């Protein structure tokens, strides 16, 4: 690494003009992040012309990058307060975040999320600075078989994160996998469950499913509840997390950041897997896993650190090998082309000012975001004091607008309402939407990666085991399944005398099996 170029990069960022653009970028990003649907990619497309007219194109690139990672901060707010996750990578935040909000601890949840996001992103930028090209090579070793194995591990983790009945969680996950098959088969273009509608040709969008099952389902459920008891606004005792809570969340933030950085490098599904793996990891190391889903602070801290770290490390494939990992990165790719730079292996040598200017702007941008979050958390939590009779229609409006903006489709709005009814019925009957949504996201990844692998292997499935990375992941899958079983068998044999101890062990043991 060229250290003087790195320092010169800070010189680029601290020019007042660039700082202003960075500030505008992260603020816009945060605001659009709050609104589900209108994602960073669409916003960047609208603002792309600024790259032409800006006095300094580097400043405009800094701003566009700011929109992207700023949006990651904003996305948490609706997940925690209104139970509407705007992105697949913030679904797991809903479980404990919304539970905390219901207990009047929305401020704690948002505060921890902001701190975790900041630390996760910063660790990831340091990783990007020092190890960028190295981890990019790692991403290239990830072929279809590795993605298939990773997604399989993901589905297994989905089954562990639910907090209710395991059979019901598995049933919901199975329906999620089935939903993922809707649309034109991407290998043969045969139609599957489209019922002749072109609107279903590309499958169902994640946002449609998530907003329906979580957001609209919750609204419907509350409408029914409301007649039972008068609305008591949750007492918002603490806006900012206490020292004790910070201490609890610290290790979770650390683990989440590392998991997020590593998995975020993988284009396609990296961020979802990161938040999911981070949550599952916390649940496994926790002394009392039953707290999860009922307002465990680590359940917010870890996935939020992970998804921000992943968002940051998704810059690595773009900046070092010229591959845009997602739609937002594709917009940044386009913006770089306007400046006359084709992102790729040469970027760091040809335009060190641009490379380090953008990378270093992220240190500062994240700091700005953290400072902005502190007063904003105090304002946002007051939304919870609004009476449900007023809040519910506003939430409904946000979900409808959000879904419409994805691809300007009225069909999607109706589809979301259908999912809303399903979400309501699921809640009534004790099914959780979490496993269903996550399995839905992983379903297409697992299917297409598996089929791609089989084509590459020419039909010989042993390749999954003999390739080092996929073999390791699959061994890990087996371990995750087998470990609790072995532990249980071992315990049963060694402690036959103390039935009381066995009984007290029962709850966590059951849980670890999930």
């Amino acid at each position: 690494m060229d250290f003087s170029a790195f320092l010169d990069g800070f010189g680029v960022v601290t020019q007042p003009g660039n700082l202003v653009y960075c500030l505008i970028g992260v603020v816009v990003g945060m605001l659009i992040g709050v609104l589900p649907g209108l994602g960073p990619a669409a916003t960047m497309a609208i603002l792309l012309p600024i790259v032409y007219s800006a006095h300094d194109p580097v400043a405009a690139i800094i701003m566009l990058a700011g929109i992207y990672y700023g949006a990651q901060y904003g996305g948490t707010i609706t997940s925690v307060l209104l139970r509407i996750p705007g992105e697949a990578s913030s679904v797991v935040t809903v479980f404990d975040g919304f539970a905390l909000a219901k207990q009047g601890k929305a401020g704690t949840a948002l505060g921890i999320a902001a701190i975790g996001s900041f630390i996760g992103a910063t660790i990831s930028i340091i990783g990007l600075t020092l190890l960028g090209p190295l981890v990019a090579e790692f991403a290239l070793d990830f072929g279809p078989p590795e993605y298939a194995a990773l997604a399989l591990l993901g589905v297994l983790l989905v089954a562990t994160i639910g907090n209710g009945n395991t059979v019901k969680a598995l049933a919901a996950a199975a329906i999620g996998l089935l939903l993922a098959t809707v649309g034109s088969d991407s290998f043969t273009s045969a139609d599957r469950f489209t019922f002749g509608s072109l609107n279903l040709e590309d499958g169902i969008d994640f946002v449609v499913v998530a907003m329906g099952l979580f957001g609209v389902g919750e609204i419907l459920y509350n409408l029914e509840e409301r007649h039972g008891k008068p609305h008591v606004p949750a007492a918002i005792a603490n806006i900012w997390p206490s020292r004790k809570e910070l201490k609890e969340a610290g290790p979770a933030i650390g683990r989440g950041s590392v998991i997020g950085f590593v998995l975020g490098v993988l284009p396609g599904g990296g961020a979802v897997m990161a938040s999911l793996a981070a949550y599952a990891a916390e649940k496994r190391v926790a002394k009392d896993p039953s707290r999860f889903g009922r307002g465990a602070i680590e359940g917010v801290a870890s996935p939020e650190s992970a998804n921000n770290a992943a968002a940051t490390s998704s810059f690595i494939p773009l900046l070092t090998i010229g591959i845009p990992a997602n739609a937002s990165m594709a917009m940044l790719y386009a913006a770089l082309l306007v400046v006359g730079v084709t992102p790729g292996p040469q970027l760091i040598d040809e335009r060190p000012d641009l490379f380090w200017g953008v990378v270093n702007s992220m240190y500062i941008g994240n700091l700005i975001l953290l400072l902005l979050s502190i007063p904003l958390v105090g304002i946002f939590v007051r939304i919870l004091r609004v009476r449900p009779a007023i809040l519910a229609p506003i939430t409904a409006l946000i979900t409808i607008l959000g879904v419409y903006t994805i691809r300007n489709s009225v069909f999607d709005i109706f589809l979301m309402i259908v999912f809303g009814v399903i979400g309501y019925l699921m809640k009534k009957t004790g099914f959780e939407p979490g496993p269903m949504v996550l399995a839905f996201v992983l379903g297409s990844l697992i299917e297409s990666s598996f089929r791609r692998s089989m084509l590459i292997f020419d039909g010989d499935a042993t390749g999954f085991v003999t390739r080092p990375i996929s073999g390791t992941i699959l061994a890990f899958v087996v371990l995750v399944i087998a470990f609790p079983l072995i532990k249980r068998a071992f315990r049963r044999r060694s402690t036959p005398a103390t039935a009381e101890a066995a009984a007290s062990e029962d709850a966590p043991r059951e849980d670890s099996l999930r």
Partner: protein
Amino acid sequence: MRKQTFSLAAVAAGAALALTACGGVQTTAGGGSDSGDYPTGAVNMPVGASAGGSSDLISRQISRGLSDELGGSFPVINREGANGALAAAEVAKAPADGSTISVQNASLFAITPLAVPEDQVTSIDDFDVVQGVSRDDYVLVASKGSGFDSIDSFADADGKVTYGTTGVGTGAQLACALTFNVNKTPAEAIPFDGGAPALTALLGDQVDTACLQVGEAIENIRSGKIVPIVVFGPERVEFLPDVPTAQESGLDVEVAQYRFMTVPKGTPQDVQDAIAGAMQATFETSEYQDFNEQNNLTPMEISGDEVVAQLEEDKQRYADLVEEYGIDLGDAS
């Protein structure tokens, strides 16, 4: 206090609404059919691709040009889905007064019909083609690890050669499938969801070869990480002067993606002329020319009638080739 919190929520919701409005501007005012003063209101430009791809970027560039030349606004609306068929259907049934125009892809009309069921085929007859825009060439590239460096080197392949494509029913798939079939090389297609994942797989040596758009592959070709074999255009690509065309390498394979401006069938001729005139003026600007160069696009600024003739010819030629070699692009065809 209650009042204050409510107004806060209202402000938040209001801000959210305002932001959403920016996302999908839907202005009802139509374009005028009276000559001379087109457009009279905002003109929608649906594009059948998501933000960030070349179709989207080209639409946005044209939108800027039209807006500069004609005044008024030409908002680009991403209406992705079904290879562009959703956006096409929307344009086809829009009022034929110039209030809805769209830059569309040749592949939707010439290649996609080979892969999808009959009832999903989009016909060019539903549109008037106003003006050609630009061509986006495909290139066959091999990974370093595969050892391939020319069409002839495929003769030494042991076992099947794998080739990544950018999806089913795309020009990339057709180009690669034709190449290996005409050359009689046993090969297996591995479809990916777009160019970026296919390139990633190629860089990681997961597949031997891939057909990609020149713009997607060029930087890694220049840095020597992947090896270009042939391009599929009618002549060599300006940006890769040393790479032969498939024709030069002895294969009768020519596949190109090109884009053109369409309006609903029956749009008044003066409106069409106004759009074509403004586009031609845009093509002259250095900003537009730089854009083409940055994105490795070859200008194809021919008239609408020429575009239609080219489309009909390509469609027939592809269909004949696919039949001759017994190629199956999609099981549903």
